[in-house]
């Protein structure tokens, strides 16, 4: 005999077509599970970014497989590589063209701090021109590290007061 106490999930026969939840939970659930990356591949880290997207590591498991080369359609910019001063302005313009809400992952030593390039030509950390949400160490980072960064970012987004932000900005 099946006990009614095993009902753990939503049951449309009991609840009807109504689900009660917090707006934040719903909005953040939608946002976290389909983060479309803007692959800002500038150096060798982009090769690891490609490996992360390919079948062995498969970023699709975390809903971020849709690499968008148009900033208008992307949610998270993955800065993968060395940012030169010459490139910095273009990078900021691409960031500005992304629709809100948007996030940034600084992938690898160069994007995070300038890395080994203590040089007149290299921006010493992409956080000087765009706000960074997650920094990934490594030169280049393993695909697992980038996936970990994506999970960290998803956990961060889950804690955001999204409904309040949306109502205030509307």
């Amino acid at each position, binding site marked *: 005999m099946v006990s009614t106490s095993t009902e753990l999930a939503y049951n449309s026969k009991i609840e009807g077509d109504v689900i009660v939840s917090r707006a934040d939970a719903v909005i953040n659930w939608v946002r976290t599970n389909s983060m479309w990356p803007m692959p800002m591949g500038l150096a060798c880290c982009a090769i690891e970014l490609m490996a992360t997207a390919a079948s062995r590591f498969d970023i699709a498991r975390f809903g971020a497989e849709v690499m968008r080369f148009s900033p208008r359609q992307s949610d998270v910019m993955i800065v993968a590589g060395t940012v030169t001063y010459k490139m*910095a302005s273009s990078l900021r313009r691409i960031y500005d063209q992304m629709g809100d809400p948007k996030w940034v992952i600084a992938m690898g030593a160069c994007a995070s701090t300038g890395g080994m390039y203590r040089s*007149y030509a290299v*921006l*010493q950390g992409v956080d000087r021109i*765009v706000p960074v949400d997650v920094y990934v160490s490594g030169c280049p980072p393993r695909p697992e590290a980038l996936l970990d960064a994506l999970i960290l970012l998803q956990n961060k987004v889950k804690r955001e007061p999204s409904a309040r932000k949306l109502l205030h900005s509307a």
Partner: protein
Amino acid sequence: MSASADATVALKSRFPKASDRASLDYPALNLPPADVPAALGALRAELGFDFLADLTAVDGSMTASPRFTVIYHLYSTTAHDYVRIASDCADDAAPEMPTVTGLWPAADWHEREVYDMFGIRFAGHPDLRRILMWDGYPHFPLRKEFPLAGIDATLPDPEVVAETHASVKPAPMAGGPFVATPGRMNLGESEPRAKDESWSERREKPGQPGAI
């Protein structure tokens, strides 16, 4: 004699101002700037050195005169040999060299890079703009007085500067540059480390006051 030794002998008889240049590998010649296009043209058309392998420059030092030397490496695709031509720029303050883009279209970007890094102007170049740094960058980074860490400058895009207040700042050198020790030794001994830790971004490099 090798093809390149033949070529230098032939050039010296044709260009009396040519002189031998000290070289550890391939035959090399010093030439005055005015003779460079004609000499390279002769090497390309008559002596078989048809491939411009490299075009670069050397900054002797702030006190040397002549200060800037432009260097051409030519390769012969038939004789499989190299020859090196060097030419001192006459003016140390505003160095100039005739272009060889008419001989090799490949020289176009090489000369732009030499202009970008050393500030040597190539007379007759079709499009002498910076190629690595952005237009309007105020310095020539491979000149000896330029510190590796860089000098304060503004970014090329004024809108981005207004938005972010970012600018070009000297990079933290932390005692660097870090270089590996050559020779037969184990990795622990040869690994890159600061050779001269007497200077950093806070302490000036000896002999170069105000370098950073």
